[in-house]
């Protein structure tokens, strides 16, 4: 058996001045999640649902400033007009379509 060393769980006090500073969900405490105080110190943990929710924030609409242009990656392929005159449609990641759809099954 290996010997396990103990250390006190570090604590931190956070002063709230108003009820609006309370986190909105039950898995969080002021200043971070319930699980943020781990032996290595505070960690910022987000679950998938929370991250997906943030996607709808108005802060995420515009592309990052100074994004380099790489055809076919950060901007559509250089448009080669086809004979019929239509440019190929660009496919960029679409906004959230994650309305609690069941997780897929994978055949590998």
């Amino acid at each position, binding site marked *: 058996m290996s010997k396990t060393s103990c250390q006190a769980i570090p604590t931190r006090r956070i002063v709230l001045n108003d009820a609006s500073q309370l986190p909105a969900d039950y898995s969080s405490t002021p200043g971070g999640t319930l699980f943020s105080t781990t032996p290595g110190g505070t960690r910022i943990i*987000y679950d998938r649902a929370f991250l997906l929710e943030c996607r709808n924030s108005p802060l995420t609409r515009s592309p990052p400033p100074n994004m380099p242009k790489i055809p076919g990656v950060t901007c559509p392929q250089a448009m080669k007009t086809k004979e019929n005159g239509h440019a190929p449609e660009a496919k960029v990641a679409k906004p959230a379509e994650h309305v609690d759809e069941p997780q897929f099954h994978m055949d590998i």
Partner: protein
Amino acid sequence: MNNKFDMLKVEDSGDEDVNGQPKEKSKKVALPGEHPLQFNYAFWFSRRSPGKQTSYDQNLKQIIVVASVEQFWQLYSHVMRPSDLGTGHSDYHLFKEGIRPMWEDEANKAGGKWIVRLRKGIASRCWENLILAMLGEQFMVGEEICGSVISIRYQEDILSLWNRTASDQVTTSRIRDTLKRVLNLPPNTIMEYKTHTDSLKDNSSYRNTDVFMR
């Protein structure tokens, strides 16, 4: 045996790497109102141009660094999904800032990666699940995670997750279990692990791997 909490210790390397060399940092920070990430991450793209003899290094481009959840979504919503990168030989890499997605990097050289091979058509969804888990610190292995890669190939797509210490079995098996959970992999899925030392020896990323079934 190592104390399994050793890996959780804060390895507060600050802005210096093990050689004391300052890392090139973007000084990117979360803006007011944004949700900061535990680590800054850099998004990289690489593509092997057919016919040309170019090194991996030359094909690798860092696109942008993100410091918050919102900055990540700005990026993610304005790049092609992996499956739409077209046929051929392309990779997206999302790595902690300061770690290059290369076997030789200081943070990677004693490390390795878990590999999951995907049939065509599910790469975008799996990649999203993997990087959300990584950004949200779901792996609970201290500083061990280095970054994730999605590799678009002709016959299959390959997802991989790189960690610092290939020899640390407590860590690698915890990563494997979390990976299975966040990707919702069926129980009999074959998982492969390859150390970067082995990759350097045979100069290949996805051949001659160690296969694990469970």
